[in-house]
């Protein structure tokens, strides 16, 4: 089964590690999703809801576009 490629990428892992080495589980708890969902987001395998995307950016104190970037190619 071929996975559909998401049209955007993200810096969640980079920002998470820059925030005192926050774990996936910790970030998941902060935004209300499982560790597995955070892992899937970081691997570009899952497209988070708008609410979760905003929650992630608020956790890191940055704008949404600094976390998620649309890929034109």
């Amino acid at each position, binding site marked *: *089964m071929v*996975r559909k490629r998401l049209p955007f990428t993200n810096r969640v892992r980079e920002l998470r590690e820059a925030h005192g080495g926050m774990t996936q589980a910790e970030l998941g708890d902060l935004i209300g999703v*499982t560790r597995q*969902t955070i*892992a899937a987001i970081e691997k570009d*395998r899952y497209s988070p*809801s708008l609410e*979760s995307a905003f929650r992630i950016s608020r956790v890191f104190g940055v704008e949404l576009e600094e976390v998620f970037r649309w890929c034109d190619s």
Partner: protein
Amino acid sequence: MTFNEKSAWIMLAALLVSGLSYAGAVANLSADLGQLAPPSVPLLIKFTVVLILISIVGHALIAALRPGDTNDRLDEREQRVHDKAGNWSGIVLGFGVIAALVNYLAFGNADLLFYGVFASLFVAQLAEYVLQLAMTKLAS
């Protein structure tokens, strides 16, 4: 693996064990009778009890191993997977029931109708758990 994934595995195992043992018992009964055995309430009760027992024991085990996970609600990704799997399960059930009904119209065998509907329920539920696990794997 989340609690919900473990739960799906347990229910899949419970369904397979109880379903296959039920099918085996019906097959043996039918072989003894020389024709399809009519649905048997004691066999159905046994199937239900086996299913419930495996489910309870399995869930108690995973809850005992990670008690903190048991109150986890489905997160957004899991909810989407559950909704999609449930949708497909409904389609499988629909096809199965229609096939059983058409079979009854063609052959008029009420016992076969019962088994057809029962099998559709079983297969639809199996499909739901298999799809939940497969879609969770694909989305991770």
